[in-house]
């Protein structure tokens, strides 16, 4: 089966600019996650969707980050405006079941904010 797809793979922007990332989960996976992974650290959950509804966005900096999953399939994560500390890899993952189960990760988008 096809894995989780993400684009772009790399993005360089200047601070205060905006950026958007796209994710297409594994077909049939209702649960979708966005993580932020700063160099040398583990992934940190930003937001979790179940179909097109938000389950957990407690660690999403809502003043600058937004995410949507309009049709319960693809998702986009946006940062506006970006700060230097947003430089990280943004990982999208999906799972077949909601909860603490196996997650399948995409290749990630490496964002550099200058």
């Amino acid at each position, binding site marked *: 089966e096809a894995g989780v797809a993400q684009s772009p793979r790399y993005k360089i922007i200047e601070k205060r600019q905006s950026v958007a990332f796209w994710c297409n989960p594994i077909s049939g996976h209702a649960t979708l996650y966005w993580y932020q992974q700063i160099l*040398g*650290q583990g*992934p940190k*959950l930003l937001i979790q969707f179940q179909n097109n509804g938000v389950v*957990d966005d407690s660690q999403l900096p809502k003043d600058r980050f937004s995410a949507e999953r309009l049709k319960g399939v693809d998702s986009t994560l946006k940062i506006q405006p970006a700060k230097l500390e947003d430089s990280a890899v943004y990982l999208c993952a999906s799972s077949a079941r909601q909860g*603490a189960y*196996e997650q*399948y990760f995409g290749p*990630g988008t490496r964002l550099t904010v200058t």
Partner: protein
Amino acid sequence: SQQGEEDPQALSIQEGENATMNCSYKTSINNLQWYRQNSGRGLVHLILIRSNEREKHSGRLRVTLDTSKKSSSLLITASRAADTASYFCATGVSILNRDDKIIFGKGTRLHILP
């Protein structure tokens, strides 16, 4: 919030030797998962052990869980160059009024020497 903490932070061993890394956590868990991350294949799920299980095997991987000590270990036997990667433990926890979620540790960086 950081739940699991891997030890050691970095480990270098000769090819063919066994590698052991540990994970300690703070609160009660429903399960514990181990993931591997390298530049080639991204973040990949390795194994899940439930809180009522003490040991689990998958190929050259052996995971143990001691809930009384709030710790887990991952043993990789007969290491290969391809095992060079970062290894993360992810604890499955129950969140009040929400579904279970997994929280990643900071990881152990394993380097297999030829």
